[in-house]
């Protein structure tokens, strides 16, 4: 049914359609509206056969989820940012135990300095935790990915994290088609765990594993994710057959045929990039976008095939490996090893900095005209950082960077957006 609905509430409705049996959560912005919606549905009887447990921390939230999933209940939780870090030990544990928990991550920056706005730092901090990690481009896809996530998780006995951009998707009200319960029931069979804590057939779960077998355990976890490289597109195809929509999959290409330049990105910014591509295509620029739908497992082969023909690849990413540069860009370079494509790293949108068409266009113009360079920060306030770098060179003093930067931003004026963005024509 078509609805004009907030992303979080749409996701809550979709999750409820998946008939979770245990939901546990601890509140953190911007995840709250999702679990509030689910809590209300459990209370008012829309979602029956489900326990909603309010816990005292994210660590407890995922721990309760581990217990209920191990005992055979379809289990869901959600978090963001600091909450994900607070549950980190359990994040690894859930995947190590092979528990098919589905968790929404309302992507948000990580402090200090504390910042509640969107970027992908939280997701990137758990990229090697053994979870399957999917990214949603729109709220429609966020809805659809949750339905696919339970199927994928339970087939592979592996937890799945559905990444949705905090605020940008979670708090946006837009048109979403919420599937019918019968459709979802037909697509998603009841949870039938391969092993479960059951007094009738006792087993020990979570035993210590020594050097004699740990490598094999880890290898098999890797193997499982390699299997997911097959199952993710298959499940997306099954979803399309059942629901009539393209959602999910490993990667998606937009106007990439014959493209000289391809922008690679994840999540909601792909929508902005598609608009940019249309504008530039209209002006004769041969440009396209590749959206990475699955970051774990990372589809090296699909990415390579999609990008091989482009002379320039711009990897736009909302995260920064401090002391290293781009994270997604490193993955893309790995995919393109041995190929001569120029790969540019464009760090954008950290801590909620708006990613604006005029700034993107300016950067694409530079990419077309300039020789290869590596990390670029979109709309970085160079006056602020240069002044602070000069001060650091002049006086050695340890302490937080943020306070000095804030003082300078105040001194240099609040205008955080480039003039071109405000005065320029929009596409």
């Amino acid at each position: 049914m078509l609805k004009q609905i907030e992303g979080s509430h749409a996701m809550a409705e979709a999750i409820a359609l998946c008939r979770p049996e245990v939901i546990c959560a601890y509140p953190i912005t911007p995840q709250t509206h999702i679990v509030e919606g689910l809590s209300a549905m459990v209370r008012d009887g829309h979602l029956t056969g489900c326990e909603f447990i309010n816990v005292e921390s994210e660590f407890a939230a995922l721990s309760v989820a581990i217990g209920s999933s191990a005992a055979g209940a379809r289990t869901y939780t959600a978090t963001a940012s600091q909450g994900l870090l607070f549950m980190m030990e359990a994040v690894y544990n859930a995947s190590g135990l092979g528990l098919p928990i589905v968790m929404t991550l309302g992507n948000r920056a990580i402090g200090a300095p504390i910042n509640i706005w969107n970027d992908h730092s939280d997701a990137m901090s758990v990229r090697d935790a053994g979870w399957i990690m999917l990214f949603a481009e729109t709220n429609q896809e966020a809805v659809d990915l949750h339905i696919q996530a339970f199927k994928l998780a339970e087939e592979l006995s592996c937890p799945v994290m559905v990444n949705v951009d905090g605020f940008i998707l979670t708090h946006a009200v837009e048109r979403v088609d919420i599937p019918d319960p019968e459709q979802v029931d037909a697509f998603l069979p009841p949870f039938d765990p391969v092993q479960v804590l059951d007094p009738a057939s006792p087993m020990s779960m979570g035993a210590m594993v020594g050097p004699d077998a740990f490598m094999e355990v880890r290898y098999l976890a890797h193997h499982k994710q390699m299997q997911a490289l097959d199952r993710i597109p298959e499940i997306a195809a099954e979803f399309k057959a059942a629901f009539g929509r393209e959602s999910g999959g490993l990667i998606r290409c937009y106007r990439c045929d014959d493209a000289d330049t391809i922008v690679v990105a994840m999540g909601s910014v792909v929508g902005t990039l598609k608009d940019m591509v249309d504008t530039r295509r209209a002006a004769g620029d041969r440009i396209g976008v590749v959206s990475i739908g699955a970051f774990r497992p990372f589809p090296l082969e699909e990415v390579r095939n999609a990008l091989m023909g482009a002379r320039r690849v711009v990897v736009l990413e909302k995260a920064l490996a401090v002391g290293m540069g781009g994270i997604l860009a490193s993955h893309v370079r790995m995919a393109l090893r041995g190929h001569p494509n120029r790969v540019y790293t464009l760090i954008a949108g950290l801590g909620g900095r708006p990613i604006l068409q005029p700034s993107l266009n300016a950067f694409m113009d530079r990419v077309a005209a300039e020789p290869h360079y590596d990390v670029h920060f979109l709309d970085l306030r160079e006056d602020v950082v240069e002044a602070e770098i000069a001060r650091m060179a002049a006086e050695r003093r340890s302490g937080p960077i943020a306070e000095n930067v804030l003082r300078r931003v105040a001194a240099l004026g609040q205008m955080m957006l480039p003039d071109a963005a405000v005065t320029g024509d929009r596409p």
Partner: protein
Amino acid sequence: MFQIRFHGRGGQGVVTAAEMLSVAAFLEGRHAQAFPSFGSERTGAPVVSFCRIDDTEIRTREPILVPDAVIVQDPTLFHSVDVFQGLPDSGYVLINTSADYKTLHIDGVMGRFPPGHARTVPASEIARVHVGRPLPNAALLGGFAAVTGQIHMDSVAEAIRRTFPGPVGEANVRAAWAAYEHCRS
């Protein structure tokens, strides 16, 4: 695409206003996207929300920097926020006030808009009369329908009813109609 920016203060229903407008557009079969100014603002703090309306899928996720219309829910904002930022001379302005431009010290700015594009409406007063509380957001949507013609008043009324079921919704619908008539006169 038609883009609207709402300015107000936390507690005035600024976010709800954008959402209701998006619902009204949705009811007309159009695509709409509403979103808040992503913050942790407390009651009384300046708040911004956004709404885009188009006939095709809306893909961009930028904040609205160049709006087609600006709705100001609280006239005391002129001192602290540049609510007109990015608004072209062809844009629309709707201000919730019973004062005139001169009193608000915005007569200079308002002069740049074409006749009929800039209006004031005493939305808080209207809401007080019809709803019993000075919550101007629903009434302003009525005014927006009248001033811009971008949305039908019937759609606005239905969106209000969906957001506030029951008598509260009906009262807000009456307030919206009153503001609509005010702005048409």
